[in-house]
């Protein structure tokens, strides 16, 4: 059986290689702390295998995770100077390669979907699944990325095999610590659950929703996602909170909703909130600044009349398809 853990090790090795590159990057004013961030992250991906298998203590990883947060809070990881092609070179390359440039990228969704939809059901001779159950798409994504990279290398023929690693680092440094924020939020969800946050919110929402009303519960989850997202500016942060409070206890457990539908639509309801909030500055305020608008809320004003009916659509889709 192909295990998803192999793939986490690939991610871990990628982060460790990035850390080594950063350590040697003299243009990065924060190279030591930055290398520490990516290095600890990479090692934690490998160590995580043993934590999941209960063969190593989890608290050690817990300390590492808090260490990562402290590093992020202290301004790490920082960026080095970008070593990539100039705009003029890119224009010339675009003329040379044309639409073939899209090909490597298209390999990713096609192969990942193939794994998720088809290989996920393939069984081995002994009757066990070829791919680890529940992880077929993730495994597919790993295979797809490697295939896409092979296609890209064959097509573009960069001068050294290290080029994609450098380019990957350029993008990763651009994202910075935000690359692991979703994983931190997922971790927070687990802590919320272990400490009874979900149960406490559930007691509050019991008073808000008429007993046994499915439509009221669906609306509470979707509107709650949107409102929390508007306040925090981030649907990712709203998701663990609202799911622990309403999505899981009420919609999935009590009303027997289909988890995939409930959670997918719940997140999208949060996105309706993102369209409306100045707290999501990089999506809503930065474009106004880039376009030199007089009214910095111009994009939000253009988006609110779409967000409100779309939130209604989400409530309807969840109500009709999840139950």
């Amino acid at each position: 059986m192909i295990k998803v853990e192999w793939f986490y090790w690939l991610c871990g090795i990628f982060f460790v290689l990035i850390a080594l590159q950063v350590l040697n990057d003299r243009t990065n004013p924060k190279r030591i702390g930055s290398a520490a961030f990516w290095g600890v992250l990479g090692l934690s991906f490998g160590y995580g295998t043993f934590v999941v298998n209960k063969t190593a203590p989890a608290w050690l990883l817990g300390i590492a995770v808090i260490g990562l947060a402290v590093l992020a809070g202290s301004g790490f990881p920082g960026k080095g100077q970008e070593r990539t092609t100039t705009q003029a070179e890119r224009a010339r390359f675009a003329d040379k390669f044309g639409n073939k440039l899209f090909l490597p990228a298209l390999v990713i969704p096609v192969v990942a979907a193939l794994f998720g939809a088809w290989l996920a059901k393939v069984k081995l001779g002994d009757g066990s699944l070829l791919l680890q159950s529940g992880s077929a798409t993730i495994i597919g994504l790993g295979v797809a990325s490697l295939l896409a990279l092979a296609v890209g290398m064959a097509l573009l023929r960069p001068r050294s095999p290290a080029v994609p690693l450098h380019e990957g680092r350029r993008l990763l440094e651009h994202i910075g610590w935000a690359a692991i924020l979703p994983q931190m939020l997922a971790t927070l969800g687990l802590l919320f659950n272990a400490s009874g946050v979900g149960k406490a919110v559930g007691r509050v929402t019991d008073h808000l929703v008429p007993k046994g009303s499915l439509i009221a519960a669906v609306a509470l989850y979707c509107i709650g996602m949107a409102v929390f997202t508007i306040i925090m500016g981030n649907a990712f942060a709203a998701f663990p909170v609202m799911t622990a409070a309403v999505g899981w206890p009420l919609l999935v457990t009590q009303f027997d909703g289909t988890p995939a539908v409930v959670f997918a639509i719940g997140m999208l309801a949060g996105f309706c909130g993102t369209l409306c909030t100045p707290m999501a500055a990089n999506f809503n305020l930065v474009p106004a600044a880039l376009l030199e608008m007089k009214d910095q809320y111009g994009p939000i004003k253009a988006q609110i009349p779409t967000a409100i009916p779309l939130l209604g659509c989400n409530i309807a889709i969840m109500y009709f398809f999840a139950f």
Partner: protein
Amino acid sequence: MWVLLAIAVVVVGFALRLNSMLVVTAAGIVAGLIGGLSPVKILNAFGDGFAGSRSVTVFIVTLPVIGLIERYGLQHQARKLIGKLTFATTGRLLAIYLLIRQGTAALGLTSIGGPAQAVRPLIHPMAAGAAERRYGKLPEKLQEKIKGFAASADTVGLFFGEDIFVAIGSILLITGFVDATYGLQLEAIDIALWAIPTGICALLIHGARLLYLDRQLDALAREARAEAKEVAK
């Protein structure tokens, strides 16, 4: 009930724009302490949670190949293709851009759009150009309207397209979180497929509003002309 303070930590921390990683960590510690977990148990929960949700961060394996094709002119090629399109009106141009942005985001090509990469250098000039051909020099009200809608076409297309692609943070967060917390085994692709109905609704609603924008611009231009005449008198 005091455990709800942990949620307040998240809300206030994010609203105050403190470092999100610290906010999340603090909220976790607060939840654990109020919930009666011992310090070791809290550390264990951080470790178990982080190990169990590693799938959330696997999108990073796509970065080397995306960076590679960017190096060889991906954005330039996308700009060339979009620039070739010709449209009579602002609204139709933005509606087609919405469709392209959403479709490419659904295939994982999120980096070919964006306010800095596409809207400012390409989409907004094309949209404003189409309006100028129709109305002459644009009064400020029209300019602002076109800018706001050009930005919105990009954002709406991205939000409700990217969720159809499996290797995106929001999808992986959903599966990583519920798998680690509730012991489910959700396939990322099932979540992604359920983003399609909402994606279609977003395209229809925002697309219709972009097409309607042409009429709004007509009306704004008429008003502006009438005002100008008043002033001339």
